[in-house]
């Protein structure tokens, strides 16, 4: 079971290249688009947060429990971070963990009634409980700001632009250091999610999906494990929420509504959930489609509705099924012998 | 020949459930398939009624292939299937269960006649017409399932383990009813675990083991075959 270093590199070189590209994105964007590069960088930041969100949702689905309140858990993270930063001036390195812990609490409360249901009752039950939280945000002016939500959330101070590293964006808004903060947090989250997925707990969650009766008989308390994964997924969703709160600078209940939840489902369904890479492909491809359909955006929901239906009916495995084929294609291309 | 299976085989995914099953069912006879649990008896019945598609071979009804017909159309040809484990409609009354059995019967009058003839076979059901089938005992549910199968006055009845879970007395009652149904000229394919009961009713039998026909022959011959006696009749 031990992996030698060369094996490690063989398996992980694609991930390493992607990280390097992301690390130099601010410079690349600046050279290509100059001032406009800043706007593109925000898009990349939102993309990174969405990747963490999609990956945490994929972890949730390994037990077969597709919740419809994942976006609400992300919203909890966003709201808690915004409140702590705006009203109490707490620095980012505290607001993010505290928000995550609060979200775990809320996830636990939501998971309690849901963990005893299965299938359709679980889906729509999670949707109703999610809406319950959204009603709280709409009703309570303090601290959630009611239906107008919270605005001008102070940016995290990550030192002046250009202090840390050689890029001097010399821009009023220190976009690039927020970008690097996001990148580091996203990579950390993805590594933790990967280790979780391949850990003993990851296997337990997957075995609950394939045969929950067998799990009960070998001593895995299925209800408790479903609650546990709900909280763990909530923890990571909250991270994504905190990142977006800082990036958008303002949030309101409609940012975390049903429409966004369905888009998250589209990313994960189109990408596929069987492997760890599925959601990444889903978010990447769908974000691309989202950008391409910008000119006729009133038809966007229709386009994505058609994409969702056709991918569920015609390609249930999602795009990830293409990985082995494309990997094989590259292998034949490069002619390297098959890695054991 | 009313029904014939020619070298049929059924696969569930990679697992081969049955292999090279060839069976002949002449009109007006009771043919039985006996064998241990998981020998492929139920799979074969489910193949005949179209619930499962064979990967090889042909199923012929009066010489014509019904191999790829949907179950609804197989029933329309006059083949009734009384499934293993009875599968009555639990939250419907006995009468409603019987009405479902006659779903394909068009004329009201024919439905009435079928109902009368079924009540002759199952007098006990006549008094319990309004009761929900789910609240009845195992034996009574078996009667409802058989009665439901008869409601479409079929030419061929596939019975899957009618004696399952019944007390010895109830098994005798069911056996008597099967004889009466046969006496009316209906052809029966009887799948049974209780080899003694099955061989006492049938004219011809097939012994299935792990998906293959191990032995076939007239019922008397099988009864006296010491191999059958040892494994299925428990006499050693």
């Amino acid at each position, binding site marked *: 079971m031990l992996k030698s270093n060369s094996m490690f590199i063989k398996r992980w070189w694609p991930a390493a290249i992607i990280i390097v590209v992301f690390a130099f994105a601010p410079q690349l964007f600046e050279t290509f688009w100059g001032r406009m590069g800043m706007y593109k960088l925000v898009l990349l930041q939102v993309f990174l947060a969405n990747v963490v969100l999609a990956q945490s949702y994929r972890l949730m689905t390994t037990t*077969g429990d*597709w919740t419809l309140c994942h976006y609400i858990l992300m919203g909890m993270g966003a709201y808690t971070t915004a409140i702590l930063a705006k009203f109490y001036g707490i620095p980012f390195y505290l607001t993010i963990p505290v928000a995550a812990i609060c979200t775990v609490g809320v996830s636990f409360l939501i998971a*309690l*009634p*849901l963990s*005893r*249901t299965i*299938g*359709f*009752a679980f*889906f*729509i*039950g999670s*949707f*109703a*409980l999610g*809406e*319950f939280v959204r*009603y*709280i945000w709409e*009703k309570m002016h303090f601290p959630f700001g009611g239906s107008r939500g919270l605005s001008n959330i102070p940016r995290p101070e990550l030192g002046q632009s250009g202090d840390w590293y050689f890029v001097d964006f010399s821009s009023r808004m220190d976009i690039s250091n927020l970008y690097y903060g996001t990148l580091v947090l996203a990579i950390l989250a993805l590594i933790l999610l990967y280790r979780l997925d391949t850990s003993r707990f990851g296997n337990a969650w997957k075995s609950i999906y394939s045969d929950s009766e067998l799990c009960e008989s070998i001593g895995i308390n299925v209800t408790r494990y479903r609650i546990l994964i709900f909280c763990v997924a909530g923890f990571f969703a909250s991270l994504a929420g905190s990142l977006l709160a800082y990036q958008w600078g303002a949030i309101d209940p409609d940012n975390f509504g*049903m429409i966004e939840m*369905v888009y998250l*489902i*589209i990313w994960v*369904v189109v990408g596929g959930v069987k492997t760890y890479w599925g959601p990444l492909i889903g978010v990447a491809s769908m974000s691309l489609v989202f950008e391409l359909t910008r000119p006729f955006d*009133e*038809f966007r*929901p*229709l386009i*994505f*509705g*058609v994409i*969702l*239906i056709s991918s*569920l*009916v015609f390609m*249930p495995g999602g795009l990830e099924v293409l990985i082995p084929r494309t990997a094989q294609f590259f292998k034949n291309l490069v002619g390297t012998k098959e890695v054991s | 020949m009313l029904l014939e299976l020619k070298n049929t085989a059924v696969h569930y995914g990679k697992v081969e459930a049955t292999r090279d099953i060839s069976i002949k069912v002449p009109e007006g006879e009771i043919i039985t398939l006996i064998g241990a649990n998981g020998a492929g008896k139920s799979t074969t019945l489910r193949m005949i009624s179209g*619930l499962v598609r064979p990967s090889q071979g042909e199923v012929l009804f009066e010489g014509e292939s019904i191999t790829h017909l*949907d*179950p*609804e159309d197989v*029933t*329309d040809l006059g083949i*009734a*299937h009384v*499934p293993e484990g009875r*599968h*009555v*409609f*639990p*939250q*419907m009354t006995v009468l*409603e269960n019987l*009405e*479902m059995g006659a*779903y*394909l019967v068009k004329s009201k009058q024919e439905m009435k006649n079928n109902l009368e003839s079924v009540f002759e076979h199952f007098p006990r059901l006549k008094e319990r017409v309004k009761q929900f089938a789910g609240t009845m005992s195992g034996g009574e549910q078996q009667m409802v399932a058989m009665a*439901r199968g008869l409601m*479409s006055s079929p030419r061929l009845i596939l019975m899957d383990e009618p004696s399952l879970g019944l007390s010895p007395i109830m098994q005798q009652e069911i056996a008597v009813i099967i004889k009466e149904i046969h006496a009316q000229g209906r052809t029966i394919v009887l799948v049974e675990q209780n080899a003694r009961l099955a061989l006492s009713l049938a004219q011809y039998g097939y012994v299935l083991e792990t998906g293959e026909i191990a032995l076939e022959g007239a019922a008397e011959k099988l009864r006296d075959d010491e191999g059958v006696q040892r494994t299925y009749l428990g006499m050693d």
Partner: protein
Amino acid sequence: MGLDILPQTIGNALVLGSIYAMVAVGLAIAFGVMQMANFSHGELFMVGAYCVYVLYTLFGWPFELAVIASFPIVAVIGVIYERLIFRPTRGNVLAGFMATAGAGFILQVLISEWYGVGLPKSVQVPYPGGSDFLMMAISWQRLAIIPVTIAMVFGLWYFLTKVKNGKALRACAQDPEASVLQGIKLNKMTALAMAISGGFAGVGGALMAPIVSVNPYMGHDYAIIAFIVVIVGGMSSIPGAVLAAFILGFIHTFVSTYADSVYGMMIGVLFMAIVLIVKPTGLLGNVKV
């Protein structure tokens, strides 16, 4: 405290309970027959409301005719759902459920393209004025919902217990394989179930068109309500859905009269959470269709 408006609140609660029953019964029968879980059931409700807006307000049909017409129109959409979404994904409740979310998007975009998003459509009230029967100052328009719902639910009960295909529908809900062995065509039954499901949601929307603001996104709240009612009532039980609809109708009406409508929705969800903890299969959980 406002005891004088008690009869009025009870009246309003009966009206609300009727609408909730109409929408929830549609969802329960679809799920009960072959686990067809429709996430965009709210959109079918919305299309029903637009039927009245188009036929009654634009084309000038009589209101009653527009409401009656909404049943077949939305029923056809239900059958399209069954053919394009539920049949290809049969056996996978999740895939069908997610796909209907996509279908909901499509309906919203089509309606907003054809009839514009702008201001909500105003549908002038066909039965103006109200009644003061038993001190209940409720408009005739709202009161009319109760008899229509009773008639439709009774009609469904009659169909399911007296008509051959209605009984066949119940048979499919209880044991699909045994039903097929009796010659019942499963695909016909699933189409029938979705037609009834669409029809009920459509008529619900049609009745509410003159009362609430008609817009492409009005289905959202009614979807949540239908989901809560179906869970509380017991996933595939129609009597459960009707019972839970009136319970929720009373909770919402009383809480929003004496406090605020959003709190009403919140308490409804809390009630559902409690039922899930105590009896995950719902009040009449084991009853099938």
